[in-house]
């Protein structure tokens, strides 16, 4: 049954026609699919590729793009942190260099060193734990943490809040803010049980997701660059030095006695004021000086013990800290900090300040150098073993960048899969945790479909079967509202629902659409066209009216009823404004308002993922019922 006749199909002209129809249809289909494809490929986007418009996302095919995207996610999308911890000037993850020399042997030593030392949580930042730029993207390490908590408390949020000292309103509000402890003001706070749990969780995450804090990178990234710009010429000018690039020098472990005056000033200020106390120690030879400082401050050991909550017998027992103990804050630690900064006795105006020459740094890169020194004894031996060309141990930097590169490249399939699916997982978790969202949607849709399949057919049946003398009047009454503007009724409709107390009930959603004049008109027309003989024979056989209605009228109109049901479902499923307006109570929300709320605060990728998930039910139903729908469409024909 087509316009092109079946005869002569093989002629060139007809073939051209058919092929050009194919061409037009394919072009049209492409314009239909293109936006969808963009949406699907957009679900994996994060800060590095958000403005990209590629059909196949670059991170799937291009290793460099994949590497940069992974690094961005590893650093929780914070460029400043990356610049600091990689000890590299950069503006954007998209410009991150790809390592050419992988320093495999050095990396192996690094791995061995880390395994041997097993540093506590504050030495490193855990990557893939939150997304600073891509809102609502939940990377894998955070998801695991949340799932663990959820399991521990069996989904009881208030129990979790009580136990962990938090005040989260929903499971979806849970978050962590993972940062490196490089600056003095950033200190871990394990007194909040929720944080403590996170610090413990950090240890269980994959080891190559750790990024170790190092003072050298922090020195350049957060201290030198903001002051002297990333241009080495500016630095040379103000410091009277002649470096070729920032890579020519590193933060020294001890006071740079040989450096220029400005360099010395920088080092002192940086160490005394800015660097986190975790990474600073003072020689034990300064113990007496330190004790004198404490004595001047506290006068007697009892008051010190009271504040420190310790049981020292005399000041002589107190030693300079060799590590910063938990809970990482308090008088003991701030006293040490003040000793570094310098403390003036208010009585005799005497200054107590750790001598610059006695201060030394103990962050990871220095410990690593010690490790190498111990392992290889001499630089020559190290160069030979590692195939490097260092002139001193001080030149060795931690090979974190190269190490991560190797690991990221080895982890390709897992990480790519993670990028592709993580936003979907976020949205699924979001939907699953919104308690009644799914149930409400199901109830609403089922109610809507049931109502559409009862009241309209019943009314149509009454009009069609019984030939009422007043049929036209009733039909007119049912359809006349089409002549009036719908906008007039919207506001009074809402007011009526409020007066009837229907707000926040399914009634408000279902009742107004219970009957529809146009649907009744359609159905009546269709019922009229069913053969009268069937009814007559059924009545002769003594079938009851109910039976006639169900077994003849309804069963003969299955396809058209399917279309009506589908329309009712689609309408109920995507009904968003009404659901939001009438049911402002969140317990009554269907999926659409929830997803809308998620989209309000999310990045593009999460929005796309939620849109795709939301459209799956409608699409599945259309796909499965396509043929029924096609058979159920009614077409107007002139009488």
């Amino acid at each position, binding site marked *: 049954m087509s316009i092109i006749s079946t005869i002569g199909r093989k002629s060139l002209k007809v073939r051209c026609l058919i092929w050009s129809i194919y061409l037009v249809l394919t072009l049209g289909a492409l314009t239909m699919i293109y936006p969808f494809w963009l949406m699907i490929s957009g679900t994996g986007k994060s800060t590095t590729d958000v403005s990209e418009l590629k059909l196949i996302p670059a991170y799937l095919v291009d290793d460099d793009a994949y590497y940069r995207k992974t690094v961005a996610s590893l650093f929780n999308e914070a460029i400043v942190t990356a610049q600091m911890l990689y000890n590299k000037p950069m503006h954007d993850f998209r410009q991150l260099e790809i390592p050419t020399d992988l320093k495999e042997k050095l990396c192996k030593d690094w791995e061995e060193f880390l395994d041997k030392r097993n540093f506590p949580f504050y030495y490193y930042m855990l990557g893939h734990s939150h997304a600073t730029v891509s809102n609502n993207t939940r990377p894998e390490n955070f998801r695991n943490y949340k799932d663990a908590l959820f399991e521990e408390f069996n989904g009881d949020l208030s129990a979790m809040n009580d136990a962990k000292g938090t005040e989260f309103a929903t499971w979806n509000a849970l978050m962590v803010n993972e940062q490196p402890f490089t600056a003095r003001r950033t200190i871990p706070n394990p007194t909040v049980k929720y944080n403590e749990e996170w610090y413990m969780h950090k240890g269980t995450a994959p080891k190559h997701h750790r990024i170790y804090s190092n003072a050298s990178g922090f020195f350049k990234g957060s201290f030198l660059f903001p002051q002297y710009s990333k241009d080495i010429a500016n630095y040379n000018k103000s410091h009277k030095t002649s470096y070729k690039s920032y890579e020519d020098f590193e933060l020294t472990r001890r006071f740079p006695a040989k450096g220029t005056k400005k360099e010395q000033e920088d080092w002192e200020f940086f160490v005394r004021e800015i660097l986190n106390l975790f990474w600073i120690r003072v020689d034990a030879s300064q113990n007496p000086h330190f004790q004198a400082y404490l004595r001047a401050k506290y006068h007697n050991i009892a008051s010190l013990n009271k504040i420190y909550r310790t049981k020292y017998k005399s000041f002589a027992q107190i030693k300079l800290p060799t590590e910063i103990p938990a809970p990482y804050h308090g008088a003991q630690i701030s006293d040490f900090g003040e000793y570094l900064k310098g403390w003036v006795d208010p009585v005799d105006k005497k200054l107590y300040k750790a001598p610059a020459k006695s201060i030394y740094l103990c962050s990871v890169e220095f410990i690593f150098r010690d490790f190498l020194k111990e392992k290889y004894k001499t630089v020559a031996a190290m160069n030979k073993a590692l195939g490097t060309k260092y002139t001193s141990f001080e030149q060795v930097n931690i090979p974190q960048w190269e190490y991560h590169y190797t690991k990221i490249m080895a982890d390709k399939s897992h990480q790519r899969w993670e990028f592709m699916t993580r936003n979907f997982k976020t949205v699924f978790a979001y939907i699953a945790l919104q308690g009644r969202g799914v149930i409400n949607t199901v109830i609403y849709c089922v109610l809507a479909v049931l109502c559409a399949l009862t009241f309209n057919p019943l009314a149509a049946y009454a009009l069609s079967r019984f030939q009422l003398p007043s049929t036209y009047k009733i039909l007119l009454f049912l359809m006349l509202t089409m002549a009036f503007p719908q906008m007039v009724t919207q506001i009074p409709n809402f*007011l009526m629902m409020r007066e009837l107390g229907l707000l926040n009930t399914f009634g408000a959603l279902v009742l107004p659409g219970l009957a529809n004049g146009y649907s009744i008109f359609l159905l009546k027309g269709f019922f009229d066209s069913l053969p009268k003989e069937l009814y007559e024979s059924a009545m002769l056989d003594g079938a009851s009216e109910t039976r006639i209605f169900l077994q003849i009228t309804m069963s003969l109109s299955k396809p058209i009823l399917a279309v009506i049901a589908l329309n009712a479902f689609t309408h109920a499923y995507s009904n968003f404004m009404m659901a939001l307006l009438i049911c402002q109570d969140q317990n009554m929300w269907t999926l659409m308002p929830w997803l809308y709320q998620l989209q309000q605060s999310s990045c593009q990728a999460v929005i796309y993922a939620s849109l795709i998930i939301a459209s799956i039910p409608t699409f599945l139903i259309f796909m499965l019922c396509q043929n029924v729908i096609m058979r159920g469409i009614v077409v107007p024909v002139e009488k």
Partner: protein
Amino acid sequence: MSIPLQFAESMELSDKLSSDPKLRIEQLRKIIRTAEARANELMIGDITDAERTKRRVIACCVLAGILVAYFFVFRKIFRIFTPPKSILGVKQETWGFRRHVWAYMLLVPAVLTILMWQYLPLARGSVMAFQDYKIIGKSIFVGVDNFGNLIVDSYWWASIWNAFRYSMLVISLTFLPPMILAILLQEVPKGKLLFRMIYYLPAVISGLVTMLLWKQFYEPSEFGALNQIILSIPAAGFIGIGAILMIICFMFARRLAFYRLWSVMVIFIIVGFILFGAVSALAFPVLFPGHESIGQTLSQFFPRLIQTNSEPYRWLFNPNTAMIACVIPMVWAGMGPGCLIYLAALKGIPEDYYEAADLDGATFIDKILFVVFPTLKALIVINFVGAFISSWYASTGNILVMTGGDAATKTETAGLYIWYKAFTYLNFGPATAAAWMLAFILIGFTVYQLQILSKVEFKNAGATEKK
């Protein structure tokens, strides 16, 4: 607040702002003063007594007009729906309650629902049109003032004009594509199901989301998805596409000329030219840059054909493209679902018609013109009227999401005007009055719609199809 800013921005972009600082300030001042006057009238509503009387008189006339119109309309509708008198002249029952108790029982829920949720709100809403309606506190009756103010409001008439433009665009762009798609789908020997599914894809995401998605494609920089595509097609491409569309129209015109249907033929030729002009207009910025002599333009014409436009389109911010940009997503999303009913209708055309046409030597175009169209006429007319009426009422959401319907992009339609009045300024009275006025303008079409509906019957065309 942002409206004057947007005006200034669009003027600047179209080089309408003077470069002389004094003139420039004067122009900007004028924009602000207009906005201020508008805001004052909206918020305070101060007008003189004489003006008030004048408005009331006009309003009374218009209201009388509306009433008379509705009276005649209802009489007409009533007549349309009244079945012809029985030939035998037997006195018919009027209601027959006693005989059909059960039937009436079945009708009760439907009638009650419609009475309760359609007629009652309608009545309450109509009362609002004569009130200064307050959500909290007592509403006072203001008589016909709401109508009076509306009639003299130039923004209202401008919004009616915009709604008319919008409606024309919707009709011309969204009405034909589903039909053409259905015909094409019908002709394809293989892959019907796949294509149907693909074209239905946009319908699975709800309307609001479609708009949000497209808003991203319309991004005004050269990185916007749509700009990337448009900017990569050379000038010759647009002219080519325009030419193809024009030729197709001419082919139809030729067949029509053969059958001496001159008036329809002329329409097809005009449509062909319009299509050619509209599509190739996208190439004009490249071909005719403007600031050069005709000689230069002509000498550069052919090399320029392969050049692409470099200036990204500001789809939603340019008054020339904003309206059409609001309609394109509707074409995209409406094509698949819209074509289903035509597909069903096409399947219902008996094979014999085509065979008879074949025997008479009819071509492909002949069959479309003289077999398909006449058979689908009822459907086409009903859809047309339905689409026309709903394009007036249902423009609100789309435009609101796309441009916010601001005056600078000339996209404030009547529907949006009412929406803003009701939900932004909370002037429910004037909003309802405006809605009634809009309905009054469209009443003729509504009657026509009901009239056709009463003349047709709905058949399940696909039911006879053999799988």
